[in-house]
């Protein structure tokens, strides 16, 4: 629901997306594919965009702990003000796609400031299987043929 509210918003990542330090501003837009997926499109470089999804879609009991420093940088007053996004890596066949649960993007939905954060002391993977928990690994079999 929060994702929908932020559709079309510009999010400010302050160069924190690892490997893309030169990019600060991203627009969150619907992919056109529907479902829970959104595109995080760089405003500064039109060639760079990421598919993102709420990690809570993937694992309901997903939990993160933010350092005081990140909380301060984002001016987050409470967890309810945070929107957490995970970057999706799409692969062909699509059932090999993954989602980065270890390094989520955390956004303050009020001021639109965000950071990519590498979680510590967790077992979450950088490349968790995207569809295994949603589909039971069977629904997408038709796609391959």
């Amino acid at each position: 629901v929060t994702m929908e509210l932020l559709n079309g918003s510009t999010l400010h990542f302050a160069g924190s997306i690892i490997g893309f330090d030169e990019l600060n501003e991203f627009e969150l837009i619907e992919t056109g594919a529907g479902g829970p997926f959104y595109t995080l499109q760089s405003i500064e470089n039109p060639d760079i965009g990421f598919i993102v999804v709420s990690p809570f879609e993937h694992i309901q009991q997903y939990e993160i702990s933010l350092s005081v420093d990140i909380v301060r940088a984002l001016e987050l007053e409470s967890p309810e003000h945070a929107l957490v996004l995970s970057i999706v890596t799409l692969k062909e066949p699509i059932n090999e796609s993954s989602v980065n649960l270890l390094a989520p993007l955390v956004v303050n939905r009020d001021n639109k400031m965000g950071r990519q954060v590498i979680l510590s002391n967790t077992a979450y993977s950088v490349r968790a299987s995207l569809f295994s928990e949603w589909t039971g690994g069977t629904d997408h079999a038709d796609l391959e043929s």
Partner: protein
Amino acid sequence: MLILSRKRGQSIIIDRQIEIIITSIEGDQVKIGIKAPEQYNIVRKEVLEDVKSANSGSIATSGSVDLLKAWVESNKKL
């Protein structure tokens, strides 16, 4: 690059706020303790490199979005 010799239990201090302690040495493995203020994000280099490569490998293309669209549509029917 500064290179220092240290023994087990010895440490170095960076900028009077970060302490790096050699806690144990076994064969080719060293255990290091780090005391640093919370604003310092400390990660293993290979984790950072891994996130970087995952990010670079996640740039959406029109082809990948089409794949996703096909998946979402086929899933709706179920």
